[in-house]
C-alpha cells in the first residue's frame, strides 16, 4: 500500500519495509573480531561487510566503520603511520581514504568515519576495509595482548536512506 501526502511525497511499503524520502529504511551491521597485521606498503583486505539489498535503486547508503589500530612502535623520532580505505566490492570504487594515521613517535590510534554511496542499483552491495603500512613495518588492525590491546571489536555499518 502507499499513502500520498499533499507535497507529493509517498510513504509506501517496498519488500516489507516502509519507504519515504529521508528516512532510514534498513541497517546492516557487520561485526569483525579478527585482527590483521600488515608489514607492507600494499593494501591488504581486512574484512568485508555483509551485503545489503536496497529497496530502491536511487536510495543512498551511509557506510560507517570503526577500527582500532597500531603501528607497532617503529621508534620515537620517525613517522609511525598507517593507512586505511573503504572499497565498494562490486565496482572496486574507493569511497574513502584515510591518508596518514599516526605521529612522529610510537602511537596507538583508531579510525572512525563514514562515506555516502549511491550505487545506482538495488544490489546486493558489500563493502570492504583495507589496511596497510607507511614504512613496510608491522601495523596492526584490532588485536588483543601486545598489539592494539582493544576488545577486538571493529565494524562496518550500512544504513539505507530513502530518496
Amino acid at each position, binding site marked *: 500500500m502507499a*499513502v*500520498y*501526502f*499533499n*507535497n*507529493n*511525497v509517498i*510513504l509506501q511499503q517496498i519488500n516489507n519495509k516502509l519507504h*519515504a*524520502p*529521508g*528516512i*532510514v529504511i534498513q541497517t546492516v551491521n557487520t561485526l569483525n573480531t579478527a585482527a590483521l597485521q600488515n608489514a607492507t606498503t600494499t593494501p591488504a583486505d581486512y574484512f568485508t561487510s555483509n551485503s545489503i539489498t536496497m529497496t530502491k535503486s536511487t536510495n*543512498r547508503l551511509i557506510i560507517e566503520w570503526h577500527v582500532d589500530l597500531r603501528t607497532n612502535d617503529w621508534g*620515537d*623520532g620517525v*613517522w609511525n*603511520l598507517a593507512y586505511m580505505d573503504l572499497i565498494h566490492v562490486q565496482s572496486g570504487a574507493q*569511497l*574513502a*581514504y*584515510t*591518508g*596518514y*594515521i*599516526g*605521529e*612522529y*613517535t610510537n*602511537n596507538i*590510534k583508531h579510525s*572512525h*568515519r*563514514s*562515506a*555516502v554511496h549511491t550505487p545506482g542499483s538495488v544490489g546486493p552491495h558489500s563493502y570492504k576495509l583495507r589496511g596497510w603500512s607507511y614504512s613496510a613495518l608491522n601495523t596492526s588492525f584490532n588485536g588483543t595482548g601486545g598489539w592494539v590491546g582493544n576488545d577486538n571489536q571493529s565494524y562496518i555499518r550500512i544504513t539505507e*536512506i530513502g530518496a
Partner: protein
Amino acid sequence: MGIVFSNTSLLSGSGNNSINLNNQIVQFVDNTATVNASATTAAWVNLLSTTITTSKNNNRVLVEYMCNHRNDFTQGNWSLTYHRMLVSGPNISNAQIMYSGHMGSASLNIGYYERQFLYTASLVGTYTFTAQGLAFQGTSTFGTNNSGSTNHYLRLYEIGS
C-alpha cells in the same frame, strides 16, 4: 494529509518533499568533499559548509563532521590543531556551536576530528553550518593537505518533532 496516532504523534507532509514524524529523520543533506586548506594562529579558516532548510519549528539538526588535520610544529613541543562549527540562520548569525579544544600531541602528528552533535533550529528556514580550523602554534594543514586523505564531510540530518 496527516495520520494521527492514538498517542497524538502526527505523521504529516512537511516542507522539502519530506514527511515529518517525531524523532524520525525528515531529510538528509550530504556534503562530502576533499578539503585542501591550511591555517596559522592568525585567523580561523573555512573548511566545509553545508546548508539545510528546515521544515518545522524546533526540529533538531544532527550535525556530523569529519576532517583530517596535521601539525608539525616541533618534536617535543605541543603541535595542536583546533576545529569549530558556526551556524547562521533566520535568527542567528555565525554563532559558535561546537569547539574541539586542543587536538594533537607533543610530537609531529597527523589525525582527524570527527564529531556528531544536535542543534535545535527554532524556526523554519535556511541554516548554514560552517566548519573552521586554526593552529595553536605554527601551521596546521587540513584535509588532503599533507595527509593525503580524501572524502571529508559535513552532513546534516533534520530530526522530526
